[in-house]
């Protein structure tokens, strides 16, 4: 496992001390404001498979991956923020090795990834891996 970025460590510290759904939800709402949002919402950046619309864009910073994401749902923005906190700044190899389920599990958010959740986080993760592989 690669060392956590500063942002990822901050997410881990915050969420592991949150007890119960209320505290976790409040944290997600707070993290929502930290999400690096997409500059413009273009149709080609829409991720299909989400009940709520999610846009994801990708950039390279040297050999490091950088993602941006947008959504109207605040909770979804919070989830995207903790996801990007972990994924941004990773190399292609690190990203390919990243186990998103484990990451969300560490934060106590693994249920948000389950297939029946309409939030489409799974589709977002797939899109991110596809974008980095191009």
């Amino acid at each position, binding site marked *: 496992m690669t060392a956590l970025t500063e942002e990822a460590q901050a997410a881990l510290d915050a969420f592991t001390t949150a007890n119960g*759904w*209320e505290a*976790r*939800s*409040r944290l997600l*709402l707070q993290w929502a404001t930290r999400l690096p949002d997409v500059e413009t919402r273009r149709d080609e950046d829409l991720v299909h498979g989400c*009940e*709520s619309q999610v846009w994801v864009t990708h950039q390279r910073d040297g050999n490091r991956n950088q993602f941006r994401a947008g959504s*109207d*749902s*605040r*909770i*979804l923005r919070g989830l995207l923020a903790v996801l990007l906190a972990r994924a941004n700044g990773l190399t292609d190899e690190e990203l390919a090795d990243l186990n998103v389920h484990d990451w969300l599990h560490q934060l106590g958010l693994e249920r948000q990834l389950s297939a029946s959740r*309409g*939030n489409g986080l799974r589709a977002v993760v797939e899109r991110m891996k596809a974008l980095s592989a191009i």
Partner: protein
Amino acid sequence: MTLPSPWRADFPAFAAFENDGITYLDTAATAQKPQAVLDALQAYYAQGAANVHRAQHRPGERATQAFETARSKVATWLGAGSAQEIVFTRGTTEALNLLAYGLEAHFKPGDEIVISALEHHANLLPWQQLALRRGLKLVVLPLTPSGHVDLAIAAERIGPRTRLLAISQLSNVLGTWQPLAELSQMAHDQGAWVVVDGAQGVVHGRHRPQDLGADFYAFSGHKLYAPEAIGILWGRPEALTALSPWQFGGEMVKAADYHQSEFHAPPMGFEAGTPPVAAAIGLGAALDWLSAQDEASLFGHEQALCIKLWAGLAAREGVRVLGEPQIALASIVVNGVHVADLSHMLGEQGIAVRAGNHCAMPLFKQLGEAGSLRISLGIYSDSTDLERFFMALDNALELLR
């Protein structure tokens, strides 16, 4: 005032939900099953399963008899003239697809199919695709603000080119009963068939499709306290004769040769392959169970729950109900709050409701809403369910605003 459900104890799922801290308010998606249905499934398999209509052995005879008895029970439930009017399908969706293929030969380019703006995808897409295959026009009837088909506009749009009207009895999004008597009259005046999607309507009260002016009526067992994978297509005898077979295989064929075959009349001719025998028996058991309950008490309980639900929603600021629901089902949106956020907060609190477009994407485009949160109750629901829901809703709104 507390409103206990005298029927709740008959549904074992509620003990499990209680243990898991779940409040089930998603009955319009699928209903829980009474013990009597579980017992019927268990008994069928425990006595020895067998295929129907094929075997001469005793278990085969028993299965066939149980299966055909279930058909008769459905006929009785719907007030049909005979069990021959009842076709077993896998659900409403399959019944409607059966119709769209089975009636296809009767359509000529330029003919019109009329639907309403609130149709579930199951009663939209089969007709849309038929229209595309055959060069037909799909005409959409708009709604009034209350969520009913606008009859004045319907009278203009149902015309001499109309060959078929396909309409929901009860909206799965808005909870509104559609004016079937008027609409079917308009369609019949033009010589068109009337197809009624009864998936939601069949669950609330007893209806004779014939009295609704339907030529065809479709519903699913799983919403009517019965298992999944069983559905019903009822057809008026003359209407059934208009259907061509659509799926081919075992059971539906009378005489088969390598290059040609002869098929059974309905219902058999439309039940290709091994049917869901256990599910059909389960549906029969659900109807027996429902028939044994006092209809007036069922209705009264649902009405009392409705009033409590509506009052609770009306009392909360910023909560908007879509349309004017007439049963214990309401779709809500909250001003300034994303439906996904609301759904997340309720899900975290064990409230099982449904968020999204409820398989009616075009309706949501029409309403100009991204989605809604749907609360739907069943005969087992009680006032505790509603109290838990409202408490969770208040918590959610406090966090989100």
